[in-house]
């Protein structure tokens, strides 16, 4: 039999609550870019360090510009990741290119790092005919088969048990690859989280659970999300390796993910990483945080800007200069604007795409629905301007 207990008996009634359990936060460099005393600094060369920084910068610029575009009405919706770029770029930098990423929605930094082009971003954001997702999901639901980045889906936490399954397949295939799934501290309340972590630890699966604890789920502060000291202590309930890192310290995130990856791939040990950060922007372009938190609180975190922190480190190492920095940001802004302009006028997908991919092949029934729809559009071309112009050719 198998009750897991290595039994130790006591005869006094004593409840425990884990208060003695203190999970510390791993940090490498201070905001001014100097390493903490005695800190274990990960080993990364200048090329990689700059690739990381440039990815963080591009993510920042992309977020700023696209929110502005949304405000101008050029875009229906957008979600910024401002403040969390160290987490989203840092974790991706520690992976092999073909490790699978199954993210939530605020992880554009990882995609940037992997080389998703600005055009690719824009095509998705504008739901045009070049969007890989064929204009079917809201902006920010990116995906790339080539970059091993699973297409984002809105229902929260569903990707977490999927990551366990995906990684199980990788293990069976002997790929020596892992799956990383990213989610918010809010999403970690879903039942799927529990299912995923428990299954991963029982089945010994090379999966890494990266929780972005950014303090809020829309308006709900984490104090109303859970009573414990964050998400990391939950791992112990599954006997899973866990670590908490400073999510604004890209070097800490990178180092933790590197070691987590080793545990996952070499030892089939799933790992939970909790990255502590802050959602500096609104939840999305539909949200206004002034209704639920103070400017002061935001300011406190703005001072912990992860880009500044990493730049300071780079500057100290003389791997980067303020001049290069200004030039980089200027270049990125230009590049984003150009890509935006090009994408926003590309036409929408053809009406025929309405029924593809429901199944591997359109069923007879769907083909019939499409034909009826086309006939209808031909009858009222003005009512369906996106498709009527290209319905009989193209």
């Amino acid at each position, binding site marked *: 039999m198998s009750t897991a207990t290595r039994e130790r008996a006591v005869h006094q009634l004593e409840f425990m609550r884990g208060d003695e359990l203190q999970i510390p936060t791993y940090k490498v460099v201070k905001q001014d870019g100097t390493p903490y005393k005695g800190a274990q600094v990960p080993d990364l060369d200048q090329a990689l360090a700059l690739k990381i920084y440039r990815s963080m910068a591009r993510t920042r610029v992309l977020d700023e510009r696209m929110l502005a575009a949304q405000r101008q009405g050029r875009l*229906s*919706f957008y979600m910024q990741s401002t403040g969390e770029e160290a987490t989203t770029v840092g974790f991706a930098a520690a992976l092999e290119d073909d490790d699978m990423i199954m993210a939530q929605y605020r992880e554009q930094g990882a995609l940037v790092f992997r080389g998703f082009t600005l055009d690719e971003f824009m095509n998705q954001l504008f*739901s*045009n005919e070049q969007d890989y997702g*064929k*204009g*079917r*999901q*809201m902006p920010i*639901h990116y995906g790339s088969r080539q970059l091993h980045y699973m297409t984002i*889906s*809105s*229902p*929260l936490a569903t990707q977490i048990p999927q990551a366990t399954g995906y990684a199980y397949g990788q293990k069976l295939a002997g790929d020596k690859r892992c799956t990383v799934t990213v989610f918010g501290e*809010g*999403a970690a*309340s*879903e*039942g*799927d989280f529990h299912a995923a972590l428990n299954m991963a630890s029982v089945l010994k699966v090379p999966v890494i659970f990266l929780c972005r604890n950014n303090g809020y*789920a*829309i*308006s*709900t502060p984490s104090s*109303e*999300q*859970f009573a414990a000291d964050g998400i990391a202590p939950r791992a112990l309930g599954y006997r899973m390796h866990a670590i908490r890192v400073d999510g604004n310290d890209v070097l800490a995130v990178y180092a933790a993910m590197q070691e987590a990856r080793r545990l996952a791939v070499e030892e089939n040990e799933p790992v939970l990483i909790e990255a502590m950060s802050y959602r500096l922007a609104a939840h999305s372009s*539909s*949200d206004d945080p002034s*209704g*639920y938190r103070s400017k002061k609180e935001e300011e406190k975190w703005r001072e912990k800007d992860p880009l500044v922190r990493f730049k300071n480190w780079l500057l100290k190492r003389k791997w980067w200069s303020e001049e290069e920095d200004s030039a980089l940001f200027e270049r990125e802004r230009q590049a984003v604007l150009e890509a935006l302009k090009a994408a926003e006028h590309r036409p*929408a*997908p053809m*009406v025929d*795409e*309405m*029924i593809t991919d*429901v199944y591997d092949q359109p069923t007879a*029934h*769907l083909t019939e*629905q499409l034909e009826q*729809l086309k006939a*209808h*559009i031909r*009858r*009222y071309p003005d*009512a*369906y301007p*996106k*498709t009527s112009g290209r319905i009989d050719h193209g």
Partner: protein
Amino acid sequence: MAKMNLLQAVNNALDIAMAADDKVICFGEDVGSFGGVFRATSHLQEKYGRDRCFNTPLVEQGIIGFANGLAAQGSRAVAEIQFADYIFPAFDQIVNESAKFRYRSGNLFDVGGLTIRTPYGGGIAGGHYHSQSPEAYFAHTPGLKVVVPRNPHQAKGLLLASIRDPNPVVFFEPKRIYRASVGEVPEEDYQLPLGEAEVTREGSDITLLAWGAQMEIIEKAAEMADKDGVSCELIDLRTILPWDVDTVAASVQKTGRLLISHEAPLTGGFAGEIAAAIQERCFLYLESPIARVCGLDTPYPLALEKEYMADHLKVYEAIKASVQF
């Protein structure tokens, strides 16, 4: 009377329900101090305290599990699911638990105090996951009531009735017209009956049946048909389960024709049930096949949403096809 939009009417109904009965408790993701992402629960925490209006952790199955228990205890649990698209993690708690709680216990226990409010429907550029109309999934579940209001006046009266109804109710709110639908709403406490459809316009040639935001669509189509000299009778089903077959059958016996329109995909949608029941009741009266104008049988798309939707033009064409059959 006061001018309110649909959201304000919902908020007003909740306010009245909470003021009138201490046992009414509202909760869900972001419904606390923030008042919900659509602000349907605005100011309720301020007025009634954190115990009676609060944020839950982000877990729909927990929200409804909790709500079932709270209702079983004797409270009137009013749970919000942020979008109807996110109600499925709670499907087991609703379909296996809420719906069967009273029956399985021989009426020892019940969750009649439960009301689940959730915004549904498309037309807001929401894509797959902010557009679904899942009423048919619930309408196959004896023990539940399923209610959809079409305007602010209806929303207030039906929501108050739902909260007080001694049965679990899933209350779908048409989010596309949350702000767009504005109308006169009595300021006092009133209820509209569950389980009764309403004939909103009389006519003689064809019956058009819909619910929620889709009522606007069939009204527009009816106006177009009117210009062709086709007289449409309009019915708002209002309660999807248990539904008012008598009112619909009486109308179809008069007009001889029926068109049903809903936002959800055609196949397996609730229009199928209605068509099946009405062809049985009205077989000898029907002058043309019962028509269904619904969403396509695909997930809800984004860029081609306009093409996907059962809009007034599609309804209008189907009216013509029906009367010309």
